[in-house]
């Protein structure tokens, strides 16, 4: 008991404050559940939002542990920038491209879960033993004297200045690399509108644009091919309408269409329906 009092007098912490404990016990389950939900969520966007929840909890933990700079950087950089980048790419790739549930390696799922439980046990039980021994935390009151950000800046620009410079180089390399990866080289010159026009007339055939579906059609419905003003259907228009239809259908049902999408064969939905009148 006297040792504990001595430790506290030296600024060491064996027990955190009640407020911190309450915050921890409220937010720790939220963080773990959000992480579990991120792994288990079928929809990748739900996973991203759960990960944002988890990052917010971690930011609060940083704030609790005398790291206000890291806490706010966590919110600004992780939940603000990185997760927005994730969502952006998710939307570009397509939300409906959900996971395939086929196991390519037999028993991989069970093996992964067993491995995870074993790994968690190996990590958690030694730490639990350490807690029972009663470790003391030195606390950051002395180190944070004069402000956390000032202290971090002092360290960053003195002891860690070389690492700081290397990291800045890394950031530039990453930015240039992302630009190179995202860049598409144009092999031939840009096709002007005049060239497109000449090519269209040189090919012959239909030069006017295909009328949209249901133009001049008496019944309503976008699946119907365009009719001619005098009656009858435009053969080219009908084909165009059907192709358009199939495309719309193929993009529309995202739940089970992911596999078909990946192989690039949209199903010919609605073929033949358009001309039966």
């Amino acid at each position, binding site marked *: 008991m006297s040792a504990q009092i001595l430790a506290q007098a030296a600024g060491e912490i064996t027990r955190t404050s009640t407020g911190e404990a309450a915050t921890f016990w409220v937010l720790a389950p939220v963080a773990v559940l959000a992480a579990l939900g991120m792994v288990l969520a079928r929809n990748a966007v739900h996973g991203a939002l759960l990960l944002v929840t988890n990052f917010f909890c971690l930011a609060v933990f940083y704030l609790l542990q005398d*790291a206000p700079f890291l806490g706010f950087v966590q919110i600004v950089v992780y939940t603000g920038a990185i997760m927005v980048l994730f969502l952006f790419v998710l939307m570009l790739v397509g939300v409906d491209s959900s996971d395939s549930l086929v196991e390519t390696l037999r028993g991989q799922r069970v093996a992964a879960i067993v491995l995870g439980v074993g790994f968690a046990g190996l990590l958690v039980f030694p730490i639990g033993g350490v807690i029972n021994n009663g470790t003391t935390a030195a606390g950051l009151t002395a180190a944070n004297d004069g402000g956390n950000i000032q202290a971090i800046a002092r360290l960053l620009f003195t002891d860690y200045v070389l690492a700081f410079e290397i990291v800045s180089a890394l950031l530039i390399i990453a930015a240039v690399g992302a630009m190179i990866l995202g860049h598409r080289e144009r092999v031939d010159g840009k096709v002007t509108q005049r060239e497109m026009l000449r090519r269209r007339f040189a090919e012959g055939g239909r030069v006017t644009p295909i009328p949209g579906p249901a133009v001049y059609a008496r019944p309503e419905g976008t699946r119907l091919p365009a009719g001619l003003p005098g009656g009858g259907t435009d053969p080219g228009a009908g084909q165009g309408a059907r192709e358009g239809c199939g495309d719309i259908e193929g993009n529309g049902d995202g739940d089970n269409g992911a596999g078909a999408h990946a192989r690039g064969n949209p199903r010919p939905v609605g073929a033949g329906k358009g001309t039966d009148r």
Partner: protein
Amino acid sequence: MNPSNYLILAALLFTIGAVGVLLRRNAIVVFMCVELMLNAANLTLVTFSRINGTLDGQIMAFFVMVVAAAEVVIGLAIILTIFRTRRSASVDDVNLLKY
């Protein structure tokens, strides 16, 4: 509450992230699980910084964040490039280097 409880939480989050990397096939979700693992490591760094009474752990966590941001940018660019050519973000479709 002992400050080491944060370490247990970080261990759990790291394990969940590792299991997610092993289980999921969507490359973007795998990436998010890697981010979770990095954040769990950051939590241990911040906790150890507090236990040791020095700010070096926080500096390490700061560097981890910067490197993670760079890594995410490059990784997502690679995923987008692969998606452009293969129309798929599944890691199973990119197995030509397997044999």
